[in-house]
């Protein structure tokens, strides 16, 4: 920690400098990035919101139809079903990935030698693209040639994993977790390294065991990272569709058609862009709402460090 006495000395010796404003970045710092982001992300999104008020097949000019897409959206049974499936997958992913990532991240932050090697291996799934991972898992889940045929004790229901809704949901969560746990554990690893060793030493002297140290020291200090990580998972769950496309194509039937998948299908398979734009706008609102909620609930926007008061 930087010694506070030297800061005080500086303060005492300084002549009448302008106060806190100096050294703070002004609005200008954010402008170039905002413009860039605006042109390539916000502007298209505004276009999509506008498109939700039109009927468009992608080839001829869009036709303005007002709220028609939205009233159809509100009465669409498939949308309700898709929202439920999306929620199930989202919660399932969080429930599986968060504990594993936290444990792995904290473990990886330790300084033992072998941990570095193993961490590199654990990182490998992230290096494969989602499409490649999904294709690979599709082969691995083949009931006649893949894992179910070689390790049938692990699989239930005659190895017909993708033929039932429950089985498909489990497979989707498993494949997504397999690929993204490395990313989240990277976040936790960085944050866990920030926890001062002194806290653990003090707790050990007090007689606290490993588990107690983990729950009382590590977890609370990881609070900001938990928010960040959960935000990514929520956003990921609301925008990712390639795993669903490649593994189940929304099946069996429409049992795993998540909202992003339904949106993709409506736009690129049935070419009903106006309606797809409505679904996309809805997704955007959901995801933004969720992130804002998460952020507010945990006081994130106050921009305070978890180290305050140490």
């Amino acid at each position, binding site marked *: 920690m930087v010694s506070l006495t030297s800061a005080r000395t500086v303060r005492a010796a300084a002549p009448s400098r302008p106060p806190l404003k100096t050294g703070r970045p002004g609005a200008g710092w954010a402008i170039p990035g905002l413009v860039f982001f605006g042109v390539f992300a916000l502007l298209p999104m505004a276009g999509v919101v506008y498109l939700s008020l039109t009927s468009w097949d992608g080839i001829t000019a869009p036709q303005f139809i007002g709220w028609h897409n939205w009233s159809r959206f509100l009465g669409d049974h498939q949308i309700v079903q898709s929202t439920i499936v999306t929620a199930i997958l989202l919660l399932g992913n969080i429930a599986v990935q968060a504990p594993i990532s936290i444990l792995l991240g904290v473990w990886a932050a330790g300084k033992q030698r072998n941990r570095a090697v193993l961490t590199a291996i654990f990182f490998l799934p992230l290096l494969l693209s989602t499409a490649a991972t999904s294709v690979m898992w599709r082969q691995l889940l083949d009931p006649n040639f893949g894992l179910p045929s070689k390790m049938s004790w692990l699989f239930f229901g005659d190895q017909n994993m993708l*033929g039932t809704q429950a*089985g498909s949901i489990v497979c989707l969560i498993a494949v997504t977790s397999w690929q993204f746990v490395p990313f989240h554990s990277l976040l936790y690893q960085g944050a866990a390294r920030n926890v001062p060793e002194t806290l653990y030493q003090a707790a050990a002297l007090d007689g606290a065991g490993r588990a107690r140290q983990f729950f009382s020291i590590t977890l609370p200090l990881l609070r900001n990272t938990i928010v960040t990580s959960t935000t990514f998972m929520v956003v990921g769950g609301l925008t990712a569709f390639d795993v669903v496309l490649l593994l189940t194509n929304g*099946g069996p039937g429409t049992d795993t058609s998540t909202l992003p998948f339904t949106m993709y299908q409506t736009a690129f398979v049935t070419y009903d862009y106006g309606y797809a734009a409505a679904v996309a706008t809805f997704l955007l609102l959901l995801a933004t709402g969720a992130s804002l909620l998460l952020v507010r609930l945990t006081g994130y926007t106050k921009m305070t460090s978890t180290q305050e008061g140490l």
Partner: protein
Amino acid sequence: MNNVSRRQALAALAGGAAIMATTAACGFKSANATASSADGDVSYWTQVDPTNTVQQAAISAFNKTSKGQVTLSTIASAGYLGKVQTAMGSSAMPGLFFNWGGGSLSPYIKAGKLVELDPSLKSHFLASPLQAGIVDGKFVGVPCRGTQPVFLYYNKALFAQAGVKPPTTYSDLTSLVTVFKKRGITPFTIAGSGTSSWTELMWVEYLVDRVGGPGVFSSIAGGDWSTWKDASVLQAAQMIAELISSGAFGSNFGSVNYGAGGTSTLLADGRAAMQLMGSWDYATLAQISPSFVKNDLGYVPFPSVEGGKGDAGNVSGNPTNYISMTTAAAGTTAADFLKTVYRDDYVLGLVKDGEVPVTTNTKSLLSQSTDPAYSSFLYDLVAGAPAFTQSWDQALGSTLATPMLTEIQKLFNGQDSPQQFVSNVLAIQG
């Protein structure tokens, strides 16, 4: 805001603008290379496919003697249709593109993007495959590759061991199911995963055709959606439900994906006795086991259904694939290029690749294919067919086909009863 940050902000803005301007300027050069330019160059889009080498050879030969050049772009099959759709409304649209004809071309015709082709081209092709290239009364697609009918593949070794012959009638088929089940062999292999539900569509196509005749689907494709109520549809759905409950497809087909030989391998391995599949599977089987293809591969047309209205010679499948010309194809280059797709060298290239093209000169060249017996079987099957129904998903276009495929998958998976199947499909276009 103090002076320092204002200056910095302006500098940052200027810098950002400079980057963007340079970017745009650098990008300008290649923009024109994509669309078809006025001096007659044409861009031809196709999807990644084993026949790409043949297509490229034809293009290279054409370019040598033509003023306008044709450039081939091979696009990932997974995104091909989406990319074509996206580009069609912009200046980046191709001059020529590969497609499946039928309902898939309707949106482009309605938007006025396609150019009608020279009628004299028609005389070089067999009659029935041409049909799907004539959409909404306009001749917009010329056949550019082999025909892909669907028929029954079977494992000759397994049949010999069981002492049975391939089926010629539907009751033959159901008794074969019993025979093979007793021997612990899956009678029919099928890919029932949501990603491959078109394999299940083929069963529906043939059963409806055999029971009710080809008129049922052509009425639906012609725009009368209520024809789904026809008794033959419900009967076909019931026949399928019976097949499934008798174990004709095994029990875990719901997780099987067709790509990479999920089903064909079972046939080649001797774990399944038969597969209803299109002619492209020959190449897959050859890759899996050349010895199987040489010694034990058998093929017959889909059997007839006793008491059904459909002719036993009717065929379903992809008549062929087509090239269409768009309004972006300037000059006569595109029209001239299209004249090369029935030339002997192009057709021969396809034949040697295992395809059976639908040109009038094909029969004479078939002896040069790698498996003449197989190629003649295909040719005779198609040439002698009273009716060749295009795969329903291509004929209807994806807007209607996608929910239809979902219901078919649910029928096979047991989520829809035959009655529910019919009412759900009817509800697609309420």
